């Protein structure tokens, strides 16, 4: 069955209650404001960005570091590496805990890739964020509370899908990440009214499914 959720696996969750200032600086935190760090690794990068953003809505934490690893989770440097390392920073460990709880909740019940074909080899991430947090809104140049369609798929599927998404609803492309990225997927961030974002995400997802089912199109197909 297609469009089954592919639940992300949280590979590690650790906390540094009182991190060394040098470390704080190296990972982009501000030693004046931050003392504690929360660190996570997950085997899916894009749901993790969404979940880190979700954490900023529930606690006074800042996402100071979040980077995808090259070539994805299947080529990790160790069993805990996964596809991404995310770092939350806050003034107290309690804030970190609260942020991590929201992070885990989001990954367990909301953000995830979906299988676009029966074999589960094509993954698509047609995620709609109803209200942005402080992290992604800053990256996207939007305001916290705006809606965002966070769309990810492999290069071919993503390109066809993005065209469908932009034409399907009154949305605006905030950022487009053409391939290659670290994980060799392609991504796009679209914004607009929530309904438009949802329509765009659905159109994107449907296009990905159709491309995956018929890769060579009507002209060159069998």
């Amino acid at each position, binding site marked *: *069955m297609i*469009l089954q959720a592919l639940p992300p696996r949280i590979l590690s969750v650790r906390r540094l209650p009182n991190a060394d200032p040098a470390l704080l600086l190296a990972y982009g935190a501000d030693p004046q404001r931050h003392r504690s760090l929360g660190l996570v690794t997950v085997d899916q990068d894009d749901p993790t960005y969404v979940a880190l953003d979700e954490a900023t809505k529930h606690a006074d934490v800042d996402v100071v570091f979040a980077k995808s690893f090259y070539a994805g989770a299947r080529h990790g440097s160790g069993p805990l590496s996964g596809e991404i390392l995310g770092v939350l920073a806050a003034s107290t460990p309690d804030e970190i805990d609260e942020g991590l709880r929201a992070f885990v909740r989001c990954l367990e019940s*909301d953000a995830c890739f979906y299988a676009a074909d029966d074999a589960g080899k094509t993954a698509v991430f*047609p995620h*709609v964020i109803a209200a942005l947090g402080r992290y992604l809104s800053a990256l996207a140049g939007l305001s916290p509370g705006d809606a965002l369609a966070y769309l990810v798929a492999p290069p071919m599927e993503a390109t066809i899908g993005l065209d469908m998404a932009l034409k399907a609803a009154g949305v605006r492309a905030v950022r487009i990440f053409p391939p290659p990225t670290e994980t060799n997927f392609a991504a796009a961030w679209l914004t607009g009214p929530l309904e438009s974002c949802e329509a765009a*995400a659905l159109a994107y997802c449907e296009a990905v499914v159709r491309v995956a089912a018929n890769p060579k199109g009507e002209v060159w197909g069998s």
Partner: protein
Amino acid sequence: MSRTRQLIDRLRDELGASAPMPPAPPLPRVPEPPARVFPRRHEGSPYAREAARHTTALLGIGHVGTRYATDVVLQFQAELAVAHEAVATELPADWATQNGLIGLRSRVRDHREYLLRPDLGRRLEPESLARWTQAGQHGVDVQPILADGLSAVACMQSGLTLLDSFTQACRARGLTVGVPVAARYARVWLEDEIGAAVSAKVAAILLGERPGLGTGDGLSAYLVYDPRIGKTDGDRNMMSNIHPRGTRPEIAGVRLAVLARAMLDQQRSGVELDLSGLRTELGDVASRAHRAPQVRVRLVEVAG
């Protein structure tokens, strides 16, 4: 559930790609049941086997595997049906007059009310009370009352025999016996009001007892000294299982008469009554010698 997951679920439906249910997992091979026959096991202990011959209770019925034998189950169900039927039977309204008795009735109006309202079954209906006060013989030693109780079947089968033997045994002991009556929809305590209305010294009610398995025809007798409303069960002496397989009515009548005699002598009844002297008076009807083996009434026959 998250909004995005709902949207994707709906899209899957629209694309016609939803499988209503996951495919059934392959069934494991079910092995053939073992070809085992469970023969009937009879009770192995000779003591239990002998005891079972002397009672109609469900003793030593054996087993087949872990369950009862089919004929035992069928017999149980048949006996239960007999008991239900006995409770459901009603004493005909003219049964008393046909048998030369005075017919009285409790305050109960129908059989269903009789089962649901024991309190109404303990009081005489006003018309019956007036008629009985008029017709009854006042100041007698013993007032016998025949009644349906919970088994009209028992009352009709052996009630008259018991009444006769009881009356004769009382007269033989020099007691005056009142005019016999038959009461419908009667509970035990109805004897208080009937006895009090004619100022009898002892009231004796003979009525069908609550049917059990295989005994839809049992009678019980309850005797009370100085009957009047307000007497309790502690003031009564009773005898149960008066039926052909228990205490036979002819013997029961004699024992009850001896009991009535003792009540009149001691001027009390119930737990206060001293029964220690009765043994000699009863003579051979008090015998507790070896009982002949009882034959269970077979309601079901199983071939083989």
